[in-house]
């Protein structure tokens, strides 16, 4: 477990998502990276039914994410950024909140058509782990996310420059500065929750972009 940075990779006009992914895969294989299985980060969103939750009149949203890198854990994030790391059983607890019972309407319900995930190939090259994921929202392709992890280090500032070089060769200038989610903690120990928050940030951007015209193919 080291420092992870996640960046979106732009899909240029006239190219399909698959073409870009193929190109990136060829590029990392040229670097000498070896395939090491698949990866998946997924996210489901639940929202409160404010009329049913007496204590909080405003609507609450909670995102539940999984990362195949930590298969026995479940990450839950509220709108304020409070992130709970727990056993997978948390989903059973969540189902108690979404269940209507004995005349009581459910406290929470799942947002339909909001399931978003990044899925793709995992590579290893030296001390780096590279993941190239296609993002799909309700099974529709929305974009590409590149995750790079530098394993030997847990402090972002101490390895950012090295990671920047690798990242820029893949996603270009958007990797000029560290991911915004990590800006407030350049010198503290990196945790798996930080990875989840980066993914959620990107997922939220993709969801917002749905109303805008979809990326060209």
């Amino acid at each position, binding site marked *: 477990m080291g420092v992870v940075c996640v960046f979106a990779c732009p899909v240029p006009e006239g190219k399909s998502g698959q073409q870009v992914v193929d190109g990136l895969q060829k590029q990392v294989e040229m670097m000498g990276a070896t395939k090491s*299985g698949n*990866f*998946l980060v997924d996210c489901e969103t639940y929202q*409160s039914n404010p*009329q*049913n*939750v*007496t*204590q*909080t009149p405003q609507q*609450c949203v*909670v995102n539940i994410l*999984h990362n*195949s*890198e930590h*298969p*026995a854990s479940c990450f*839950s994030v*509220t*709108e*304020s950024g*409070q*992130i*709970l*790391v*727990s*056993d*997978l*059983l*948390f989903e*059973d*607890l969540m189902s*108690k*909140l979404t269940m209507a019972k*004995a*005349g*009581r*309407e459910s*406290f*929470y319900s799942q947002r339909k058509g909001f399931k978003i995930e990044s899925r793709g190939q995992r590579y290893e090259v030296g001390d780096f782990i590279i993941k190239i994921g296609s993002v799909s929202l309700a099974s529709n392709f929305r974009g590409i996310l590149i995750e790079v992890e530098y394993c030997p280090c847990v402090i972002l500032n101490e390895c950012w420059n090295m990671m920047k070089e690798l990242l820029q060769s893949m996603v270009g200038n958007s990797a000029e500065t560290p991911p915004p989610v990590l800006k407030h903690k350049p010198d503290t120990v990196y945790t798996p*929750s930080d990875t989840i928050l980066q993914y959620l940030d990107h997922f939220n951007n993709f969801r917002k972009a749905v109303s805008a015209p979809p990326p060209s193919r």
Partner: protein
Amino acid sequence: MDPSMVQQTFKAAPLTTEFFLQGSVMENSLETLVNRLKGLCDNADYQQESFQDHEMVFHIKNTSVPTPLVFRVRHSLVQTECWSLRYLGHAEVGDKNRPTLVRSYIDCPTSENVAQFIGELGFRMDHEFVVKGFYFHKGRMKITVSKFYKMNQPGNTTNDTIETVCPSYLVELSVVTSSGQEAVGDDMKNFAEQLKPLVTLEKTDHRKIQLAQT
């Protein structure tokens, strides 16, 4: 192991059914009980394992039905990094042939911010308490002997601010497993027999106790 396989295994057989029996032992017989349990249980050659937990009981309420949904946050006062969020279903008494009570039981280990987290979900704390005691295991059976303390200052779990609610210790015998494994009930019944007449572990109907409160 393939990550997706781990997730599948977790989902295929969720251990969310608890078979249990309850009883109590008076303070003067605690030592006898602990000695007997030491002899009966698996961890006989070690010092018995003890625990000190702080439990916060959270309610989420609904306008349509006043009965709240209850989640319990528990954390160890000894190993302070251990937190868990628990849900306990209503205990089913079932028919006479069923040897134990059965309830749905979800005990989910979490990070330490769980209280704030479920606070943001709309839960409010109803009450809190401290529980101290011993636990034993025999095979997949777990036996806890616990004493409950009222907290006189909110949030303060130190010994000089808490007081017992009852001099007796609660004794619980339980097995958490997947649903439908009724056979464990017979093992538990046999074990409970061995504690008689020191402690009588029974199917106590929770509805009667709750009714007596109102």
